[in-house]
């Protein structure tokens, strides 16, 4: 298992220079007030992990990995664990940098606002990855991108229809509840999303004809 996690992390390490340059560009933009660094969290985490899927697919790693002991089982688990490691690392880096930017620009660190924004971005990251991974395992990186775009489009249309034609009071009550208990509800939701996503991906991969 550890070997499979290492493989993903070593692949990410190979692209560390590009990632560092990207981070630097965003840092400069953040200092100029053009964007918030927090939004880099979902972008970086998703991009980094998507690249591992693309490399895997390009080199037909999926077939090779199954020839290794417990390959089919451990490679999916390892992908999710590597994702968690990357999300934690990215969150730490982005949080520290956000504090630094806030301090340099205003001479004070706005802990409350930064933490809430990062928390929101963290939720968005996990939500996005929970949807993307099963699609990646089912369709492969190329087709998965198209499938995801279709899903996002359909969700947007459905959202539009719901907000226009349906009574939203139950949804507002849920949001009010989350607003009060967000510190408990959101972490639980993130863990649940990742777990369900992992189980779906595992099932897809076990049945997949490679």
């Amino acid at each position, binding site marked *: 298992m550890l*070997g499979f996690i290492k493989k993903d992390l070593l692949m990410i390490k*190979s692209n560390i220079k590009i990632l560092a340059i990207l981070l630097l560009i965003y840092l400069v933009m953040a200092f100029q007030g053009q964007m918030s660094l927090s939004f880099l969290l979902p972008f970086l985490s998703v991009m980094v992990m998507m690249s591992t899927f693309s490399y895997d697919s*390009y080199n037909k790693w999926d077939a*090779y990995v199954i*020839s290794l002991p417990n390959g089919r089982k451990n490679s999916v688990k390892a992908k999710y664990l590597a994702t968690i490691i990357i999300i934690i690392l990215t969150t730490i880096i982005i949080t520290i940098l956000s504090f630094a930017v806030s301090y340099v620009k205003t001479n004070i660190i706005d802990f409350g606002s930064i933490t809430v924004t990062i928390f929101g971005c963290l939720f968005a990251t996990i939500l996005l990855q929970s949807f993307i991974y099963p699609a990646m395992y089912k369709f492969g990186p190329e087709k998965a991108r198209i499938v995801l775009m279709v899903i996002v489009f359909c969700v947007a249309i459905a959202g539009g229809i719901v907000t226009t034609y349906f009574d939203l009071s139950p949804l507002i009550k849920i949001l009010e509840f989350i607003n009060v208990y967000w510190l408990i509800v959101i972490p639980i939701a993130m863990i649940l999303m990742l777990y369900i996503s992992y189980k779906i991906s595992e099932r897809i991969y076990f*049945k997949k004809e490679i």
Partner: protein
Amino acid sequence: MENILEIRNLCKKYNGFELQNVNITLPKGMIMGFIGENGAGKTTTIKAILDIIKNYTGEIKIFGLDNRKDEKKIKEDIGVVLDDMFFPEILTPNDINSVMKDIYKNWDSELYFKYLTDFALPKTKAIKTLSKGMRKKLEIAVAISHHPKLLILDEPTAGLDPIARNEVIDIFQGFIQNEECSIFISSHITSDLEHIADYITFINAGKIILSKTREELLEDYGIVKCSKEEFEKIDKSDFIKYKKCKYEYEILVENRKIFSRKYSINTIDRVTLENLMVLMIKGEKEC
């Protein structure tokens, strides 16, 4: 003799292609060459052995164990080289060592680095910078560095120049020095197998059409070259296939000595795996 690999009635259906009742037996300490043209079913059979493909029927036993039930135990003792399937190419040979030592219980880093040195492979260069021959040698080094008992190789010499192919064959011969070890090697480069294989199994259109020892094939089988008049005198049951060439007939016979006693035709050559393959696939039987 103990069998290291046994395949019984393996079937797998795709749209437009079918593996039909594939039966293969590889005794311990032997090398089996698995030949056939492109698309004959070699890779599908290997993928079934490794349980990479799904929904196949039949029984596959490796080291006497079921390939699906005892998958983890079996795969600890198998080394594989698959056609165009390997580690992502941004990784380096050093990275592979770091990954593999946490995957195989018996991974031997010292042996792996010895192979890298022996094969003159760089440790810190990304796989994508290696030549095809170097990459193949790296794949082989990875496949044999955890002391496997069985090597499963799918087209390990495809696309290599003769020098690199020769080096790769030498590696396999070194591996087989240990009599506990066996190799199952698929290839359509038949000349490589003529040097190293103890058994030859021939698959065509998803069916095993021949499985014999190399001696039986290369010593007994023959290619008769004769004129049309001579050909017409030969009993159909005395040959396997024939091919009409520009000036002569080429006839594949199962036992050239018996044939030469029965017919007074002088030109009977020993068969090579290549012309055996061509005649078996392209040859005709009906006169």
